[in-house]
């Protein structure tokens, strides 16, 4: 089956068309920021840029990021085949300037020019029982990836114990450390538990949730809301120029932890939260949300 064409369309859409829920929350926050403030003006420029990118089919941000894919597929399909077609779609999207070439050899410093390299794209394949594919794509810039951070509890300097209050304490410090560097206002994906690598994967996966949804776990839903409100009291604001809008959302997921470990992992998604989910049916039909 043709994987390449829908993949190309998914990449193009992610690069040029910011998700509606992210636009909506920025419009809402823009209205709340003080008149004539830097924060209001920055959010205005951001929203103008989002419009322009959509109309002219240009990348919203020049940093089209490290390509992250979380794929759910029906039994009986080859991940080798999928990877091959995905790579072809990525090469074409790079040629068409929807992606900037971002895969650099660590030893030689050479850019491959087509976004294909060791570990690039970053793909997680998950077989599931449904009869269709769900392909989750995130184009996440390097600046925002750089401000991600992993804590292990307890942390005595933050008086953070091994409980949800401890989680809140280190996340707030993480947001403080990020300042405007990850292109605030951002969305936090938080993974609690797991091993170190799993906790990062978990935190990134949370970012596919809608900005305004709440965790199905009641205690986590309260924590998400609490962290969002507290972080916005820091006053960092859009681009770190000051203001009410430091974060747009907080999304928390958990894995069971080893008795000796308690990881809290933060992945920071910039305001240009280019994440899209494609439902791809076996007859080739697809929808992108």
């Amino acid at each position, binding site marked *: 089956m043709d994987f390449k064409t829908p993949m190309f369309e998914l990449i193009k859409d992610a690069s040029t068309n910011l998700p509606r829920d992210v636009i909506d929350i920025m419009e809402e926050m823009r209205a709340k920021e003080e008149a004539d403030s830097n924060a209001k003006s920055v959010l205005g420029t951001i929203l103008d840029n989002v419009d322009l990118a959509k109309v002219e089919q240009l*990348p919203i941000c020049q940093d089209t990021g490290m390509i992250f894919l979380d794929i759910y597929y029906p039994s009986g399909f080859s991940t080798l085949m999928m990877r091959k077609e995905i790579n072809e779609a990525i090469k074409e999207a790079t040629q068409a*300037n929807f992606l900037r070439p971002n895969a650099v050899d660590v030893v030689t410093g050479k850019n491959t020019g087509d976004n294909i390299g060791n570990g690039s794209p970053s793909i997680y394949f998950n077989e599931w029982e449904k009869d269709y594919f769900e392909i989750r794509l995130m184009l996440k810039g390097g600046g925002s990836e750089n401000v991600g951070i992993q804590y292990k509890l307890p942390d005595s300097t933050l008086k953070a114990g091994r409980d949800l209050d401890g989680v809140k304490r280190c996340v707030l410090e993480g947001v403080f450390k990020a300042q405007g560097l990850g292109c605030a206002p951002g969305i936090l994906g938080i993974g609690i538990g797991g091993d170190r690598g799993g906790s990062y994967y978990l935190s990134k996966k949370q970012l596919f949730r809608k900005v305004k949804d709440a965790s199905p776990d009641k205690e986590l839903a309260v924590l998400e809301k609490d962290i969002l409100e507290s972080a916005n009291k820091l006053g960092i604001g859009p681009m770190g120029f000051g203001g009410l809008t430091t974060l747009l959302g907080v999304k928390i997921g958990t894995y069971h932890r080893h008795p000796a470990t308690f990881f809290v992992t933060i992945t920071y998604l910039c305001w240009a939260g280019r994440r899209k989910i494609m439902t791809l049916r076996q007859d080739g039909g697809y929808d992108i949300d």
Partner: protein
Amino acid sequence: MINLTLPIAEGDIKKLKVGDNVSLTGVMVTARDVAHKYIMEHFIKEEPQGKDKELFDLLYKHLHDGIIYHCGPVVKEDNGKYTFLAAGPTTSIREEPYQTDVIKYFGLRGVIGKGGMGDKTLQGLMDHKAVYLHAIGGAAALIGKSVKEVLGVERLDFGMPEAFWIIRVEDFQCVVTMDSHGNSLHKDMIERSKGELDKLLAQ
């Protein structure tokens, strides 16, 4: 809005204060991680020779009293003609180890980027009369429109994001967030938000 044309005189830079909105017109050069390291190792630490000397002469022409833009653009190529499609700023703090030396070496009047820079650069801006200008991170399509012409590209072998792109801009809008008098919005914001963080953690 303060309109400035490149190259910029020292006197005009001294007038700029944190918070000023600036519109730039003229020629500037993009340079980010690889380029800064290269300038440091091939120009500053040793006298440039041969091809490096040619590159230095070209860059000096545009950068003396000029501006470096921390940017790794998306550029369309059509029969050797380049067009900037998306060109927002990249995070500047990664150039902190090099920036002051680069400002001094070329006689730069400013750098444009995002996220601000540290104490070493703030001191460099004071010592060499330059400013740090903040563009809106991620507003790449919009900023790309202010790039009217690509005059040339050097060291494209560094890769599209890392090459030196020599560009002519019109009405390139940014905000002064670090001035030549030792003021930094970023430093103030860190102090202010640290106070709020301490309050939240005391609860």
